[in-house]
């Protein structure tokens, strides 16, 4: 009897929302007859499963949607596109969802959290605004950089170590208005996924995290207008089909009018001042055929702050992504992207004897290709490349001031390339691995003059390069490795190791990043930052996946960390590299996470215990010191309670240990000035930060084509004066005495807004 090799065939297709035509990200596709066999659909809703020929029932499962199934006779390749129907019941919506009920347990992915954007709308943040990045800060392992801080820290990493992507375009400054709102208008968003460890090989360039934010495509069935009016900002959203079922578009805009309140001021300079931002998101997509789809998405946003007409600063991001999805066959999916990203700021100063404008820009062009290959049910292979050309204009001064010349700090050019490949494979029903590598090369290019410095910071040597010449190249392999072992259906342990390399560095000499901070590339003086992280976690779901529990521990070692000489001048300084000091750091901690996903009460509790420290020769007498991101204890509580069809209540509570800060240990006098004496860097701590916000949403009676709701919120319900800064001064009433002054930004702030949808 000759045993015949079984023929294998593939079922594949694209999964969408039946109501809007939006592709669904990460839907779980399983085979009823073969438990343990399954795939998660990719970021474009594409899935592919290869099985021995036979009869099967395929199940499509996604939280918030009714499970779909199809019986197939697999004797040839089958193409089956799926439209899932939203389950509609509010009680099944969750706050932080995984694609499958227990995908958090089974996936070969540590440190990943996928946010359900629809549910973010129930969590009020500041001034009643719903904000994606502010919600990300409520996840254990992520800490805000403080009130008014322009960033967040993930697992002890600095604010510039987070790769924030909007439809694959790098967003260099993801915050508006000095850190109170992010640039992401949640009306326009489909999915936000955060990676704290185990970053897939397609991502690279930042040490500590990836925030992959994806825009909606637009409803391809019918036209809709929606929006909201709030106390300080309003939004409007318009979407619809270009051709029903084939293409759609989406336009979303938002603007604040906080400066209207300035008009009420009795001070005429404040009346003539401005403080606003606006955002515009736009996207279009079109299906060219069975196997091809193109997308064009763009973002444009700007912040402006002006004081009378003596001082003005504006800054903004613009991004654009052109993408082409092509399905080569049932097993091979390709995404090609051409991406543009631009961040700039302008400062205008017109005070008395000073009259000048300062401008700075960073601009990227990126071509990226990613293939996903599903050869059989045991393997998922990803490979591709990415090439980015960076242009950095650190500062151009245009002067109408006779005391200052027009100056251009030299523009810098860099070319960053990567090739990557990974394989996710099932060793057995219980054990799954992902192994991959991302090989990156970063080259600093001419034209320009490049300097080296001696130990005093003076120029030791300079060399001139012409356009396109290679000044310095760094090549780094970044291995990535994850393993998942299922203890049983509902619990698993996972481990990962990843190396990340960062070649763009944000110079920020303040306790929080400013919009005018400068990005510099790796160079002959600045080496790439490297982080190696190992992570080990235990995951358990219980009560039929109603609760998710996890504890994740991590240990991260960072090389070539950058800090600054005392009193460093980082802005408009051609020789800024001479002000830098380099050393290494380490971060470690444990994150506990408990989520309740179903029922009237949903939400999560998070607790993180962690430590981050740096050792940089030249700082703190070469001893280890706590990094600004060292937040020992962090507690996050989110609770959402659906009382009935009309009313939903929510509350969030945050507690953080205060961040390390440098305070004086003494004082002295020079030339009639009392100066403070500092002995150690970050030797003290700010007071702890805690705050509770509450909110309530009332759904008005639903009409045939119109739906509306009112949202009420109170930020900082118990009016705690959280410390924004602590400064020191001579007591105005007693010059012999020195005192500490605490500045707090916000007390209790109630807010109201109205949202509508046609």
């Amino acid at each position, binding site marked *: 009897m000759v045993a015949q090799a079984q023929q294998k065939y593939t079922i594949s297709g694209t999964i969408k929302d039946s109501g809007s035509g939006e592709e669904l990200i990460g839907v779980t596709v399983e085979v009823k007859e073969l438990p343990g066999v399954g795939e998660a659909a990719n970021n474009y809703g594409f899935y592919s499963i290869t099985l021995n020929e036979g009869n099967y029932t395929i199940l499509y499962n996604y939280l918030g949607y009714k499970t779909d199934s199809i019986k197939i006779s697999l004797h040839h390749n089958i193409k089956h596109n799926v439209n899932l129907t939203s389950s509609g019941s509010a009680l099944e919506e969750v706050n932080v969802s995984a694609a499958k009920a227990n995908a958090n347990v089974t996936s070969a992915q540590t440190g990943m959290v996928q946010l359900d954007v629809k549910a973010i709308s129930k969590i009020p943040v500041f001034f009643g605004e719903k904000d994606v990045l502010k919600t990300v800060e409520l996840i254990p392992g992520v800490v805000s950089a403080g009130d*008014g801080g322009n960033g967040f820290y993930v697992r002890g990493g600095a604010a510039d170590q987070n790769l924030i992507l909007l439809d694959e375009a790098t967003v260099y400054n993801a915050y508006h*208005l*000095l850190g109170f709102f992010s640039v992401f208008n949640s009306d326009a968003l489909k999915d936000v996924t955060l990676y704290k460890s185990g970053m897939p090989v397609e991502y690279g360039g930042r040490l500590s995290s990836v925030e992959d934010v994806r825009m909606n495509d637009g409803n391809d069935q019918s036209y809709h207008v929606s929006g909201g009016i709030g106390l300080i900002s309003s939004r409007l959203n318009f979407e619809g089909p270009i051709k029903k079922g084939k293409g759609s578009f989406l336009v979303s805009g938002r603007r604040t009018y906080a400066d209207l*309140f*300035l008009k009420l*001021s009795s001070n005429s*300079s*404040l009346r003539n001042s401005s403080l606003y931002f606006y955002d515009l998101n736009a996207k279009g997509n079109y299906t060219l055929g069975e196997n091809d789809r193109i997308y064009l998405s763009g973002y444009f946003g700007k912040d402006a*702050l002006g*004081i009378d007409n*003596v*001082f003005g*600063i504006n800054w903004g991001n613009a991004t654009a992504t052109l993408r082409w999805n092509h399905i080569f066959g049932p097993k091979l999916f390709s995404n090609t992207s051409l991406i543009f990203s631009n961040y700039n700021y302008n400062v205008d100063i017109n*005070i*008395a*004897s000073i009259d000048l404008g300062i401008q700075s820009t960073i601009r990227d062009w990126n071509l990226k290709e990613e293939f996903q290959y599903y050869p059989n049910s045991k393997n998922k292979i990803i490979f591709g490349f990415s090439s980015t050309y960076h242009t950095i204009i650190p500062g151009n*001064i245009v*002067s109408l001031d*006779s*005391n*200052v*010349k027009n*100056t251009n700090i030299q523009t810098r050019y860099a070319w960053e390339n990567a090739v990557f490949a990974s394989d996710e494979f099932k060793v057995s029903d219980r054990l799954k691995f992902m192994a991959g590598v991302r090989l990156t090369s970063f080259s600093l290019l001419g034209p320009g003059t490049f300097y080296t410095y001696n130990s005093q910071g003076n120029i030791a040597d300079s060399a001139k390069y012409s356009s396109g010449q290679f000044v310095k190249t760094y090549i780094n392999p970044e291995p990535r490795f994850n393993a998942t072992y299922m203890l049983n259906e509902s619990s698993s342990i996972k481990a990962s190791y990843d190396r990340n390399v960062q070649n763009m560095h944000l110079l920020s*000499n303040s*306790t929080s990043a*400013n*919009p005018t901070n400068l990005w510099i590339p790796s160079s002959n003086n600045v080496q790439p930052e490297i982080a190696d992280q190992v992570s080990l976690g235990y995951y358990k779901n219980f009560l039929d996946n109603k609760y998710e529990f996890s504890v994740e521990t991590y240990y991260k070692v960072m090389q070539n960390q950058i800090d600054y000489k*005392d*009193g460093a*001048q980082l802005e408009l300084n051609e020789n800024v590299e001479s002000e830098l000091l380099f050393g290494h750091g380490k971060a470690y901690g444990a994150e506990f996470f408990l989520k309740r996903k179903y029922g009237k009460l949903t939400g999560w509790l998070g607790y993180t215990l962690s430590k981050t420290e740096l050792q940089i020769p030249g700082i703190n007498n070469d001893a280890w010191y706590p990094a600004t991101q060292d937040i020992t204890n962090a507690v996050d509580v989110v609770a959402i309670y659906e009382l009935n069809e009309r009313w939903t209540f929510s509350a969030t509570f945050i507690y953080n240990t205060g961040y390390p800060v*440098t*305070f*004086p240990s*003494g*004082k*002295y*006098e*020079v*030339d*009639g000035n*009392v*100066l*403070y*004496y*500092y002995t150690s*860097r970050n030797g*003290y701590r700010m007071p702890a930060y805690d705050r509770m916000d509450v909110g309530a949403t009332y759904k008005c009676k639903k009409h045939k084509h119109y739906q509306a709701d009112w949202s009420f919120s109170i930020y900082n319900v118990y009016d705690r004066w959280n410390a*924004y800064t602590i*400064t*020191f001064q001579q007591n105005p009433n007693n010059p*012999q*005495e*020195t005192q*500490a*002054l*605490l*500045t*707090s*930004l*916000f007390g209790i702030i109630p807010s109201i807004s109205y949202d509508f949808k046609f």
Partner: protein
Amino acid sequence: MVIGLSLLTISCQKVINVDLNSTSPAIVIVGNINDQPGPYTVTLNQTVNFSDPNSFPPVSGAFVTIADNTGNKDTLTEVSPGTYHTKKLQGVIGHSYYLTVTANGLTYTASSTMPQLVPFDTLRVYTLTNPFKTKDTVQFPQAGFKDPAAGNNYYRFIETRNDTLLSRIFVLDDQYSSGLFINYTLRSDTSLAIGDSVKVEMQCIDKGTYQYLSTFYVASGGTTEVTPANPVSTISNNALGYFSAHTSRYRSIKVPNQ
């Protein structure tokens, strides 16, 4: 500045108690030599704890010398507690000076080279509109001078108003103004009033002194934009303070009636 104004409308402030460590006192050395006739002064003081009153003990009985690069060496005499004067040294443009202080068993050294002279051309009263109160005008002294195009130049201005020395530090460099005629306004907290007599000293200082004085306000704890640190000292062995060899030129004016 960026943060300051926009949040003035809603932020709050209060005085709090902060528990600050005390630390063993550190020495503060301030020494100045110029190209005018001596004697030149070096003062030695100590730090005190943050919660102490602002009275800073002088360091007496220290051994202080200043030498130059042409073989002159002067041992300073303590004329009052913590204040030491030279006996015969004469500051010369272009010469380098070396300070040595031995106190409490420790030795501190510093050096400074007196830069070339840039003449102090003009001093006038400059009127500008206070940007935050459109009806008010304020007046400050304004120094005028021509910066040499070659090399890096650093300047310090000291204002004496009605015989009172202002403690405000005025320094600038020529990074963006090399070769231009510079009009530098000495803006302090208080406007000039009619009848004030103003004397301004213009110093050409060296790079080390400029680096110290330009990082001065970082250590005054009033700003939150940068990590606080001691100003960048050119004195060895972790001494606080500075040692500056500079040219000095003076001009005076009286604020006229409008």
